[in-house]
């Protein structure tokens, strides 16, 4: 790779000629180091805090529910809730990508389009608790007949709306980055607009779109504030409820488990909070891994 592009480090340098450049290089190296140290510190903290649990009964921890006995308590309900949430949040991807295609490919550059774009950007910056209030008003109260009130459906739909602006923005950026020559080439060969988008634009933009969707799933998995507002339960049992009733009944998710653990009086629960954080990190990592593999695959296929 290095052979075909210009490499600035191959230049002959006058000693002391590029002080400010070297200072800048030092600063950005420090920035990278700081990022690594911070991520490492978080990871170390979580691993160390959860050491007792992860070395003695990690399997039991991920396979049992939250009970009051700290030696038996686990996060199975949280994992289940988080996976259901991730599954439902995926529903927002076609909507988000569709909106991005419309905004980038079909919409004319009018003031309404710009207004929509600005609004979407602003929505991405709205604090998550506000989406929680929206979810409370719309899904928990108004649509109670459908969602069952404080249910995993309400929570997941709230998070789906929360990530929608992120999906739209990242997808739009990815579509915008597709060179115009791709489109021109397709049109030149007689393709319609839909054929151009389907066969050229979307495949070329897919790696970027995937990155955005992965980030948004990770975001949805980590959110606790909207779920608190929507009414995730601290403790629940499902009784004889069938799957549909469970979907409309009490629920929890990993961030809620972590929050509940930190509120317990006994110090032993802090280990549970750390272990639940570790489970959440691993879950997000696994989902990221799937998407990274998918992205690399698509990029490779396009490169050929």
């Amino acid at each position, binding site marked *: 790779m290095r052979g075909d592009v210009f490499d600035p480090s191959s230049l002959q340098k006058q000693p002391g000629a590029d002080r400010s450049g070297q200072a800048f290089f030092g600063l950005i190296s420090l920035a990278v180091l700081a990022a690594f140290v911070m991520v490492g510190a978080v990871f170390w903290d979580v691993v160390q805090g959860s050491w007792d649990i992860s070395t003695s009964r990690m399997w039991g921890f991920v396979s049992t529910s939250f009970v009051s006995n700290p030696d038996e308590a686990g996060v199975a309900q949280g994992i289940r809730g988080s*996976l259901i949430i991730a599954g439902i949040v995926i529903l927002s991807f076609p909507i988000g990508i569709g909106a991005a295609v419309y905004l980038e490919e079909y919409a004319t550059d009018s003031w309404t389009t710009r207004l929509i774009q600005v609004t979407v950007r602003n929505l991405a910056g709205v604090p998550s608790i506000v989406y929680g209030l929206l979810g409370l008003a719309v899904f928990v109260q108004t649509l109670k007949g459908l969602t069952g009130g404080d249910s995993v459906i309400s929570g997941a739909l709230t998070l789906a709306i929360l990530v929608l602006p992120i999906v739209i923005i990242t997808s739009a950026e990815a579509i915008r980055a597709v060179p115009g020559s791709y489109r021109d080439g397709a049109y030149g060969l007689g393709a319609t607009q839909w054929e151009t988008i389907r066969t050229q634009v979307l495949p070329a933009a897919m790696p970027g779109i995937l990155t955005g969707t992965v980030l948004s799933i990770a975001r949805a998995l980590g959110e606790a504030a909207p779920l608190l507002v929507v009414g995730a339960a601290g403790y629940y049992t499902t*009784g004889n409820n069938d799957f549909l*009733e469970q979907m409309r009944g009490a629920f929890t998710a990993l961030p809620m488990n972590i929050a509940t653990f930190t509120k317990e*009086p*006994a110090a032993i629960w802090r280990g549970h909070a750390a272990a639940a954080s570790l489970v959440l990190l691993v879950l997000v990592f696994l989902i990221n*891994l*799937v998407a990274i593999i998918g992205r690399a*695959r698509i990029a490779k296929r396009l490169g050929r």
Partner: protein
Amino acid sequence: MHTTNFRRARLLVILLTVFALFTAACGDDDDTTEADSGSDSTAASAAEEEPAEEEPAEEEPAEEESALEGSIAVSGSSTVFPIVQKQAEEFAAANPGVAISVDGPGSGDGAALFCDGEIPIGNASRAYKDSELETCAANGIEFIEIRRGIDGISVITSANNNAVECVSFSQIYALLSEEATGFDSWADANALLAEMGSTAGELPDASLDIFGPGEESGTFDSFGEIVIEAVAKGKTGLDSEAREFVQTIRPDYTSSGNDNVIIEGIASSDTSFGWVGFAFAKEAEEAGEAKLLGVAYEDGGDCVVPTPETIASAEFPIARFLYTYVNPAMAESDPAVAAFVDYMMSDAGLESVTAVGYIDLAEADQELAQSVWANRITGRSFSG
């Protein structure tokens, strides 16, 4: 071609592994529910046998119990949450057909849900306020008030603080009431103490870093009522006619809804001061993070350190009752709700109160609570 196939195969393997992990996680959950109910049913039969042996009067046929279905939602105080969680676990073990959810957002939040008719059972770490019960009345919702335990509120400082061992109510007032707004040294309170006519000793000249629960908390309300209002009304021996006292807590301190955050704050400064529920304070003391201060009701009175015994006997002056409110209409229409409250008030259920760190009611109170529930007496039975 070879490489492509190989790559495809590898990708397939990875995807399958991830899928297997997903389903394993979900499947596990089901397994555990089954395993749970399996082990539960043995625990349940044991639990059923025990009271049956001890008390033949309070019988509940096993077959009927396990056939019980329905769903119960409980919400309210985070202080009461651990008690109800434990009771719910035991009840669910004996009644696998019942779905229970227990939540602890705060006494006030629970009261709002209860009085909107959203939940059949509301917990509170204080009695429901008149303003809250007005909503109940407006919505035509009756309530059965059950007192179910005692929780002490501990006044705490850092484990490293050797300058203070005991505080009197008037000293707490001089440090934490609204009149103390802006005091950032313990010694700032001395002038106020003198003005109040208090004979409690001088407080040391050290930085005053205050940590406590926020306004949404029942612990905040109870502390204000028990300590600040008592001083303001002259109950602790100060002349409340001679000068005007306030009845509110100062606004300028670090507040948190998470008790462990309060404890962390207390541990972070050697001269910290604050208050928190007894169960949390005791854990923090054992972990070496906080010191429980003795409290004297009157200046120069006995200095009492909170222990389960001194709280139960009311020698320790800052204690509050924990309550549960039941909607009688819902208890009548849903046998699962009635059965759960029955279990809460049974001897086996009541053991949860002390098991999670709170203190049993005096026997007379306990019997009254049980009879209030048994006879479905509505209205304020305790707090009136």
